[in-house]
């Protein structure tokens, strides 16, 4: 069990050859009204459910190589790499919990959000039919599963965030956020007397440490943390999730928070929780923090925990070119 598995993803050419898009498909951005996102979004989901981003794979490998060969932590991280290779090669879900599906759509003026929403929903239904997504949308009280990943009451799942921008491109990012890691997210209100956490960066640090200790291995560590400092109860949590879209290893634009992220990552990796909570030196793969506004009376720290299987991806549609995927 202890031989070192090398990450070995299929080439972009092979991935493209399995695409659900017809060869040569191009988006006509001059005719935004008639743009159909359903196929390119289906292709995005096919990739995110079975392929981890390179930066996440690299972080897992780096963690494994820092563990003692043959230890439980080493073997567990090694199995994660084995799973990454297998899911990619077979185009099967990396994890059976294909998560709640969250989209961020950025688009130029002229795109119909109503039409785009219907197309994205259709893509999710089809991806569920093809077993790329597990039906993960149930009625809260009865537990009845809609079977399609569609919200049985309204249209709140899949969650879709729209934003109009000035670029002549349509960009769709997706995150598949598992239930186990969602359950260990936490929101704090500073000051927090029990933690001895005040309204400053030291207080924020105490909240993050507390959340990671409480999570243990239950969010499928090593985790990736999105930390929103400020906002309200809704915008803070929303931001903390969006932050997880950032690539591991990229610097925070705010040098003060960049130092905070790096030092805290080191500290958290001395907690000894390790992969899946078995013990070890790899408890988190990274932290993404951002400072927000706040009401003078409130100081929230919202933490979203993403499992090691951080399934995220972005599709970009530019004028007269084939869709590009960062996976």
């Amino acid at each position, binding site marked *: 069990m202890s031989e070192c598995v090398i990450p070995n993803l299929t080439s972009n050419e092979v991935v493209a050859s399995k695409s659900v898009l017809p060869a040569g498909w191009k988006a006509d951005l001059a005719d935004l009204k008639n743009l159909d996102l359903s196929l390119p979004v289906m292709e995005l989901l096919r990739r995110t459910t079975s392929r981890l981003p390179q930066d996440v794979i690299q972080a897992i490998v780096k963690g494994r190589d820092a563990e003692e060969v043959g230890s439980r932590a080493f073997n567990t991280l090694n199995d994660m790499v084995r799973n990454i290779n297998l899911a990619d090669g077979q185009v099967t879900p990396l994890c*059976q919990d294909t998560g709640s599906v969250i989209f961020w759509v950025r688009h130029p003026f002229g795109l119909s959000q109503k039409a785009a929403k219907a197309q994205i929903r259709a893509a999710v239904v089809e991806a569920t039919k093809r077993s790329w997504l597990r039906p993960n949308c149930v009625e809260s009280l009865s537990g009845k599963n809609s079977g399609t990943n569609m919200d049985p009451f309204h249209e709140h799942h899949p969650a879709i965030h729209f934003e109009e921008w000035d670029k002549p491109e349509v960009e769709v990012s997706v995150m598949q956020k598992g239930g186990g890691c969602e359950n260990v997210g936490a929101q704090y209100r500073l000051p927090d007397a029990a933690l001895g956490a005040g309204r400053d960066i030291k207080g924020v640090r105490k909240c993050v440490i507390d959340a990671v*200790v409480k999570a243990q291995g239950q969010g499928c560590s090593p985790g990736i943390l999105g930390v929103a400092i400020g906002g309200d109860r809704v915008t803070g949590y929303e931001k903390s999730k969006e932050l997880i879209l950032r690539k591991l290893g990229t610097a925070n634009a705010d040098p003060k928070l960049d130092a905070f992220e790096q030092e805290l990552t080191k500290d958290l990796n001395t907690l000894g929780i390790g992969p899946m909570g078995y013990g070890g030196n790899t408890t988190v793969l990274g932290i993404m923090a951002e400072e927000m506004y706040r009401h003078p009376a409130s100081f929230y720290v919202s933490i979203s925990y993403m499992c090691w299987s951080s399934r995220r991806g972005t599709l970009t549609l530019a004028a007269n070119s084939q869709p590009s995927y960062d996976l």
Partner: protein
Amino acid sequence: MIRLTTPITEEQIRTLKVGDEVLLNGRVVLSRDIGHKFMKEQKPEWLKPILENMVIYHCGPVVKKNEDGTWSFVAAGPTTSIREEPYQADVIETYKVRGVIGKGGMGKKTSEGLQKTGAVYLHATGGAGSLLAERVKRVVDVKMLEEFGSPEAFWIIEVEDFPLVVTMDSHGGSLHELVLQQSQDRAKALTS
């Protein structure tokens, strides 16, 4: 590495200790949230022969129906076990279950149940959905599929060399308890 095949005897289970690595073979029954509430509250008789001396797996698989009407597992890693803490000890005792597979570990009540009945908690690698589905050789049957939906139904499967670690044994040992204690101590040092 210890090879175990279901059904398992109490005697076999009592020899297992925290940290043992196990390759499990034979029949396993999937059950998670609705299933555990159902087992504790309704205590259905028909489940007894299915579960006696067997292993329960906390898992909501991604499944695929084949053209001939049979099912395949596409992804099948463990789900977080602690949600079954209110039910697990009762389920183990009522149905004489010898093992529970999941992730994240369980609490004191379950540990007491493991000791009393003679059962262990077996940890699988969370997120390793494709890897673990590969070790599922056959879907034997499924119960309550209509009622509970595919992620929550009682899937009865056969596994081959399913890789697990004993993290809670039948003598009160728990790796999770140990790691929690150590990490809490370290957190205190980091924040003092």
